[in-house]
Structure formats: C-alpha cells, structure tokens
C-alpha cells in the first residue's frame, strides 16, 4: 500500500530589497519562525516581479506565490508598489479565472520594521495554502513527484 504523505506546500515569496526583505531578516533576528517551505527571492522592488515569474512558479509546481513590498507611499522607488498593486490585481483575477484560487496568490505590504508581521503573514499564508491543498492547475506534470 502506498504511503499517504502529509501535504507540504511549496511557496515562493518575492520580497523587495528595501522593506520586505529587511522585514524577513528582522523576523530572523527575532527568531520569529515560519514554515520552512517559504523560500524568498530578493528583487529590487516588488514592481520587478513579472507576471511571468508567477506563472512559471505555478507551472513548476508551486502551491502559492506571495509578493511583499513596501507599504503604499513608502516605496523606495517612489511609485513601484503602486504598479505592483495594479498589475497583481489584474493577474490574480486572471489566475482565478484559470482555476488558481485567489487565496493562492497574495500581495502584502511589510516594512523593514515589521519582522513580526512578516512571520505572521507567512504563517497565515502557509496555513491557507495547506487548507487549499496541492495546486494542480497549469502545473507541468513532469515536475511533480512520482
């Protein structure tokens, strides 16, 4: 009989260098844990995140993608996070239409001082994705475990 493995989601987090990545570092210095299945990619600004990256993540088997940027009005690049907000609102609607539930994608504003918030956001997100279960939409079946 095949062993039923507990579902462990795989989550890609994009963090802007100036606020959220620093917030994640602060969560680390404060030993504020969050699940190990969150892996962070550092980008200069949340507006650097191309919708293609997110599609790629889902195609390659990610179960959730989260984008973190500076709070509106605090963007290091003045207006970058506003672009993110608008772009992602559209993309997430589109993904939802494709069958990737809205809960699997998220944009959060985390400042460099909000270590606790970073950890809380990640815990919450992982919990949500675990509830949703594995993402099967648009995933290239070859990347899934046999």
């Amino acid at each position, binding site marked *: 009989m095949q062993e039923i493995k507990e579902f462990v989601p*795989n989550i*890609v987090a994009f963090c802007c*260098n100036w606020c959220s*990545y*620093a917030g*994640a*570092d602060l*969560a*680390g*210095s404060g*030993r*504020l*844990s*969050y699940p*190990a299945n969150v*892996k*962070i*990619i*550092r*980008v*200069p*600004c949340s*507006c*650097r*995140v*191309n*919708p*293609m*990256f997110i599609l*790629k*993540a889902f195609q*390659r*088997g*990610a179960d959730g993608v989260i984008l973190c940027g500076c709070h509106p*009005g*605090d963007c*290091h*690049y*003045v*207006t*970058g996070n506003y*672009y993110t907000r608008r*772009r992602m609102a559209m993309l997430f609607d589109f993904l939802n239409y494709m069958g990737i539930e809205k809960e699997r994608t998220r944009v959060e504003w985390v400042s460099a001082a909000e270590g606790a918030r970073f*950890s809380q956001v990640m815990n919450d997100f992982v919990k949500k994705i675990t509830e949703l279960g594995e993402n099967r939409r648009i995933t290239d079946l070859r*990347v*899934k*475990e046999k």
Partner: protein
Amino acid sequence: MQRIGVFICWCGSNIAATVDVKRVAEAIKAEPGVVYSADYQYMCSENGQQLLKNAIKEHNLTGVVIGSCSPRMHEATFRRAAAEAGLNPYMLEVANIREQCSWIHKDMDEATEKALILIRTAIAKVRLNTPLQEGESPVTKRALVIGGGIAGIQAALDIAEAGFEVDIVEKNATIGGRMAQLDKTFPTLDCSACILTPKMVDCAQSDKIDILSYSEVEEVKGFVGNFKVKIRKKARYVDEKKCTGCKVCMEKCPSKKGLNEFNMNLNNRTAIYIPFAQAIPNVAVIDPEQCIKLKTGKCGICQKFCGAGAINYEMKDEFVDREYGAIVVATGFRPINIDAFNEYGYSDNADVITSLELERLMNAAGPTNGVLLRPSDKTHPKVITFIQCVGSRDVSGCGKPYCSKVCCMYTAKHAMLIREKYPDTEVHVFYIDVRTPGKNYDEFYRRAVEQYGVDYIKGMVGKVYNENGKLMVQGSNLIDNEQVIIPSDLVVLATAIEPEPSVRKIATLLTASIDTNNFMNESHPKLRPVESPTAGVYLAGMCQGPKDIPETVSQASACAAKVIGLLVKDKLKTNPCVAHCNEMMCNGCSQCANVCAYGAITYVDKEFRIGGGKTEVRRVASVNPAVCQGCGACTVTCPSGAMDLSGFSSKQIMSEVEAICKR
C-alpha cells in the same frame, strides 16, 4: 560553463547549530558547474575572506555563492574580497541561510534541506550572472538654483560658501520672493525685510553667485553631474549694467496706473519700476503691457531722463546656455484663487481681504505706509474678523485637500500685531483647529489669546454679507453651540497656499515627478526629503510641501549640503544594476518611459539592418545608466520583453523560481 565555488559559513553556531553545514557543502559538490565547495566558521572574518580569495585564484572560479547571513549584511564585504582576488564583484551571490533559515527553523533536517535549496537557487542565479562594471561620469562643478525666494537664497549662499559657483534664476525682476512681502515673521515678530534683505545683499555681493533675475529656465538636458540648461533672460528694456537704481524714471513715467503686484494690487505703480526699495538687482524694469512707448511708439520720457542711458526699447529676450552638476528647485508658492469661495464675499466687498493683502496693509513700505486702513474708505477698522482654512482642508473641489500649515501661525501673528498697535480694535478668529506644532509656536498662539485678548471662536463661517455698511460675519460657535453674527469692519481670509504654478513646467523639464496637488515629490518622504527622485535635482521650500520660513531655510541648507556632497566629487560612480534595452526587440511604444519615475528612459532613432542590404530607422528606448535607479518597473511594463535589469534579469529570476520549485 561557469566554474562556481560555494562557501558555507557556520557563523559560529548561528548557522551550524541548525544547518548541517558539512552535509550541505558535500551535497552541493554534485551540482553542475560547482568545482569547489567548502565550509568555514566565519566567512566574514579576515581568514574567511582569505579562503575565498585563495579559492578564486586557485580554482579559477568565475562565480561564487556564499551561504551565510543576509546579503544586506555582508554582500558588500564578500564582493569587495572577490574583486581583490580579480573576480568581478557582481559574479558573487549570497544565499541567506541565517536570517531566512537557521534562525527561524528548529529541526535540523528541515533547515538543512532548506539551506540546500537556497544555495541551489543562488547557484542557479550565478550561472546566469554577467560581469558588471560600475560606470563613471564627470561632474560639472556649478549649481543652478531655480527661484530666488528665501529657499533659493539660502541654498545659493550655502553652496557658494563651500566654494562652488551658483546661479540663481528668478522669474521676477528681483529676488526676495514671498518673504519680502511679509511684514513680520512668527514666532519672534522680527521684521521680515530686516532679516531677509541682508541675505539678498550677500547674494549680490558674493563672487560665486550669479543672479539671473527676470529669467526663466527654458530647457534642461543631461543628467546628474551634467545638466545642460537653456535660460531665457526676458527683455527688461533696461540695461542691468548701466542702471543705477536712481528712480528718476519712476518719477517721470506718465503711465501710473499699473497694479502693484508687490503690494498685492492694493495700489498702483508706474510702467517702469523697481519692485521695492531693497530690490536685488536694484535695477528698473519696464512692463511692456503698460508702457506707452512700447505700445504706441510715442513717449520715451524715461529714456530722455535716464542719466545713465540704461533704457533700451529695442531689447529682446536673450538665451543663455549653462552647464550644471546639480539643480535646486525652490519655486515657492502663491495664495490660491478664492473666487470659488463667494460665500465670504471677497469679490463683492473691498473690505474682505486675504492675509497676504493684510501683510502689505500692515507694512511700513506698503500702500498705507503701515497704517491699518481698510481699502474701501481708508478708515481704521474697529472690528476685524479672521477666517481660517479658506480653501485649506477642502475636498469639495473648490480648495485644496491639504492643511496649508502656516495660516494658524500667521493669523495669530496678525491678530496679535493688530491688538498691540490698535488696542481699541476688537479681533475675532474663526478656526476649525489651531495647529501650532513647532518650537515656541503654541506659546505664541496662547499669547495672542491670553495676553492680547484675541477672541478665538471654534467654528466655521457660513456667510459674509454686507448690511448697512457692515460686514456681517455669520458663523457657528461650536463650543457654545450657537450661530453668531459678528458685524465687522474688515474680514481677513487665511487663504490656502498652492505651489507656484510654474513648478509644473520646471518639473516636466527636469523629469521630476509632481503630486496631485502640484507639489514636487521627494525621493523618500522620511529619509530622503530634500532629494527629488531625479538624481541631481534637490527640493527646497514650498515647492515640495507647505512649510514655514524656519523649515524652508532648513531644507534649503540641507539641499546645499547634498549639492556640495555631489559637487566635491570629480567623478560619479553609477550603480551597474540598471535597466537596459534590447534594441532589436524594442518597438518604441513609450510604455517604459511612462512608468519610469526617474525619467531615465529616452527614445533615439537608430538605423537597423533589415536584410537585403537595406536598413530602416526605428525609434528605440535608451536607458541613461547614470539616472536609472534599477527598480525594474519598466522591465515588467515592456510588452515586447526588450527591457531587462542587470543583476536581476528575467532569466536569472526565472531560474531562481525553477530552483525553488524543483522537488
């Protein structure tokens, strides 16, 4: 194929206690491209860095991944070490296995597994890294200050003090700006002219400062360190070098009906005039709209009487081209137009005036020689009512949504000065909130109430109407919950302020951004409040937001410090992680330029070979690496995928995504 070296730091026990560093170092050896792998107790230590340098040389490494603390901590350290060993520093990436791994996970297997993935991700990125070179650009050691008010004057004086040349471009005939129009200044009540005019004289006398009055910026090209600016010197019909400021022309000029802008149009001036007694330069100017000679060709009286022979009716606008390393914007403010606030009866009643008009009515050099007389019948007003927030904090569309910041204080000042000079005058102030944050500010306001007996009424005025020669001010008194009607002789409106409208043109020329209220945007609201997002452009005074004189002067000096910091450099190093355009793919759609907050993207026409020996000229985007800040907004906007960001290229990030998702 890259030759990659991987270094796993223990960080004492910080990493090693949770991540099995030996296992990681061993496992990573199997990764394609990895030719060297090691672990060490403290990579950031002198010995650790030496280990890195030696390995780069011995193994001819072309790429390095360090598994250690956050790159925000030691990326610069490791990159410097790599550069010393002859490796391009941008060929090194840091995998964060401390803050984002060992510190937040307790289970060793789990943390080791994650560390492996993070390092593989960094390796995936490094495989696609390319050597990047920091650019260099020269610096023109001269600054431009746009606007000759107190902000511009202070910035120019401070820059000149450091030994750099500065030009002040002022659109009016004299420098001095709004502060020159003020009577007294809060909270000390010293005379505005007495503290401003010595600074104006300093500007005129400094051999480093060149004042281009009656001039406007027409064109700006270039970028930080290398601005090329075209300045229009408007024809003033008076030779600046010859005019001695003797004012004989003003006595003789027959056209005396021009409105005196300096006195807020409360009295008249001649067609040839010097704006005010202490004007700098103290040189006359002719108003071409008003001058009989310029309009009809007949008159020429001023020319006849000018002993210096300075009058020249043939004068034309001139253009001056100058180069600058830095630009300070200090264009200032003006009171808003209050025609939309007819409930206060400003347009129907001469005795309803604005606060700036009151400044002139109180000023010894003003139209009434400092005696407070109301405009309609030149009598002493016995009851004066002030209305605050006229147009401020107003989202109805008639006014401005913001607090103008200075009105509470200047109204307290006016009320106090009037009560002091004319103790028999009754003074009322309608206010919504009294906002007095600032050193000695609240004390100042309380003095108006407690010492001078100014009647502050919490509430707003609904209507001002004329009845039997009195101005009836009908408003609410919210504390007593009643509607009051105060028969007044003079009503003063604390009019909201707005940025001087010419700032829009300036911002466009400088590709500096502007907010919905026409205030210039600062680079960061808290940490970079004097820099504009456009490199090399700095902001001083009201053009950036409402502020009073002390704040304006502080910001101007801060601007000067930034400008000096820039001008002392011989060369500017530029961040190599900037956007670049693949011209073969670019279709010239302009979308990238539209999202760029820095104006770093311009368009050039380039010739491309299209086969068959033919060429075609296409419009393509071109990024100025000295101006680009590397946010990447353009890369995502670009519909054809022509824009990419060095150091964070789409391919690199895609490969990181793949590495993370690989199971």
